[in-house]
């Protein structure tokens, strides 16, 4: 048995580390700045405001339908930049590997990162790798930080939401969260469940270009789902949010799996969706712009900002009733019966 695995040596900083960098990381992630292998990346001085963000990824399983931990790490950080209206410029990549991780699995992740970076046009310019003893980690943890540029004319923040604004969701809810949960549980559900992981910076760029000034806030509803993110917007803006149950886009197979596990799509993580808070009079135009992009084909207006019910999210149900949507508490756990 000569299956290649990651050894503690690969994190030693010695020869094994060097080989890992040159034979794996540079092979797939090559960029002029990274190639220098210096202690830090020097970026050209650019006028204007910078956006800077960081995020860590610890997903289990590391490969899942629709993506893997590598794609997630690239898309997640790009999206965090995009949600402030920034044009993503470059990423850092920090890896914490568990001793014993199969080399081919690591290579698959690195190739996936490389593909995601190329497709998004955002390079990795600096990186770091550490190896922890077996049992002290879980295969691979990734941290990505990102830098982006924000045009002077752009001011996007939850605080800017106004009464009468529309809430637009760029696509269906819960695809990523339910895919991970059913994979972890080994449950097979009819239909094609897959993560929605994708970068949203081109969708955001189209919105900002086509409708300058109309987009007041942008958020990506990752952990905690649409429910928790909207609660944050309501709280930050001091306004209420009213949703319409029937307008919430959910894939039928996602809804079926949620029924089975006693979960609500509103609380499940998304990795390729954004919530746009847009001027009420521009809502239809914004919807059209989003739907014209591949990322936003299934975008829908799901609600609006209201002066009443400050700081809370309300959902109107088909039966003519209404209820409060609270943020998520703790990890969503499947129920007994």
């Amino acid at each position, binding site marked *: 048995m000569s299956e290649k695995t990651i050894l503690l040596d690969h994190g030693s900083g010695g020869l094994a580390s060097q080989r890992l960098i040159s034979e794996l990381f540079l092979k797939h992630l090559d960029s002029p700045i990274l190639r220098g292998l210096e202690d830090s990346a020097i970026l050209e001085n650019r006028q204007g405001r910078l956006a800077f963000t960081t995020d860590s990824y610890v997903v289990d399983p590391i490969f899942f339908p629709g993506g893997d931990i590598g794609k997630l790490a690239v898309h997640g950080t790009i999206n965090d930049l995009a949600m402030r209206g920034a044009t993503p410029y470059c990423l850092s990549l920090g890896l914490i590997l568990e001793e014993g991780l199969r080399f081919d699995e690591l290579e698959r992740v690195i190739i996936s990162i490389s593909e995601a970076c190329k497709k998004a046009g955002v390079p990795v310019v600096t990186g770091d790798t550490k190896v922890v003893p077996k049992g002290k980690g879980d295969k691979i943890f990734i941290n990505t930080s990102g830098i982006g540029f924000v045009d002077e004319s752009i001011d996007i923040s939850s605080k800017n939401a106004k009464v009468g604004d529309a809430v637009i969701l760029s696509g269906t809810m819960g695809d990523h969260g339910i895919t991970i949960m059913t994979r972890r549980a080994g*449950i097979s559900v009819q239909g094609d469940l897959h993560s929605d992981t994708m970068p949203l910076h081109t969708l955001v760029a189209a919105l900002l270009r086509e409708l300058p000034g109309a987009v007041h806030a942008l958020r990506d509803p990752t952990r905690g789902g649409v429910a928790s993110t909207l609660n944050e917007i309501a709280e930050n803006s001091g306004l209420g949010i009213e949703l319409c149950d029937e307008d919430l886009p959910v894939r039928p197979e996602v809804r079926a799996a949620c029924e089975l596990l*006693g979960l609500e799509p509103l609380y499940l993580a998304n990795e390729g969706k954004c919530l746009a808070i847009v001027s009420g009079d521009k809502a239809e135009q914004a919807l059209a712009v989003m739907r014209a992009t591949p990322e936003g084909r299934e975008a829908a207006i799901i609600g609006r900002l209201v002066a009443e019910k400050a700081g809370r999210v309300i959902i109107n149900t088909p*039966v003519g009733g209404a209820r409060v949507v*609270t943020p998520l*508490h703790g990890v969503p756990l*499947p129920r*007994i019966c």
Partner: protein
Amino acid sequence: MKHLDEYRAADLTKPLVEELKNAVSKPLRVMEVCGSHTMAIFRNGLRSVLPDGMELVSGPGCPVCVTSASHMDAFIAMADRPGVRVTIFGDLFRVPGTSASLAQASSRGAKIDIVYSPMDALDLAMRYPGELVVFLGVGFETTTPGIAATILAAYNRAIKNFVVFSTQKTMPAPMEALLSDPNLQIDGLLCPGHVSSIIGAGAWSPMAAKYHLACVVAGFETADLLKSLILLARQIGQNDIKVENAYPRAVSWEGNLRARKMVEEIFEPADMDWRGLGRIPASGLKIRPKYATFDAEVRLDITLPQAEEPKGCMCGYILKGMNNPRECPLFDTRCTPANPVGPCMVSSEGTCAAYHKYGRDI
């Protein structure tokens, strides 16, 4: 899911709301027995459209909520034993015992796995032959057949390191205990759809007769619930008390005889401790002596510890329908889903969790 949307659509459900208003001719209190009903009623916004005079109270049909404090302590003590791997349904993870929860036991190194079916627990037993894998049986008739099938599979495959700690409970025994309390004024029961698919709609007949209680077996979609409430209101209004089955697409009068036969092969009726209700004769299921090798209480020689309910926690009263969560001094102050004191705040089916999540004034 088109099938479900059909039962939720406005053009079907809105007229039913009107029909319900017309059906309620005098004040009535209805208990929804099942935790899934409590949740569905809140989620669909039904509470906000109920006609005046109709009051819904939540009953004891949340399996996690009715698990006694001493059982929780026994579960946690067992998880701390070396060589034991405990497998549970997710709801149970955060339920506090007297001094800790399974989640806290897990954080200090106890081996606890959340599974989605007892068969997953059997798979774990085969994967870890050096450990004793315990499945915590917490649930009603809906989960018992699956557990019975798993024990049979373990028996047939001669798997020695798999056991079940059964606190399985049965309906409608606790309802009898509940209804004999003169303080509880209930006119009708919204009977649990899933449980009734096993025990049969007919199982509610003695309740209807003995306590003069309108009984309607209900499904879980908006239209199911509204139709069932209409039937209950009419029965009570016309004093025509009986059992009606408003969920015939899943429930028959006799129930699932095959599932019950398998359960009877493995389990026998036993007295069971219920949170808030105490020990109720023949309200639970124990593993028969023939299958004692799969009985955790036998294999691990467990005696139930004495345990007090948490001070100030009103779960016991809430799951009997005597109080609503807002009347509990701990509700939303010391007791929240993030930091639960009582089980009704933990389970996704729990009444307090439902009130916390959905029950705020709009």
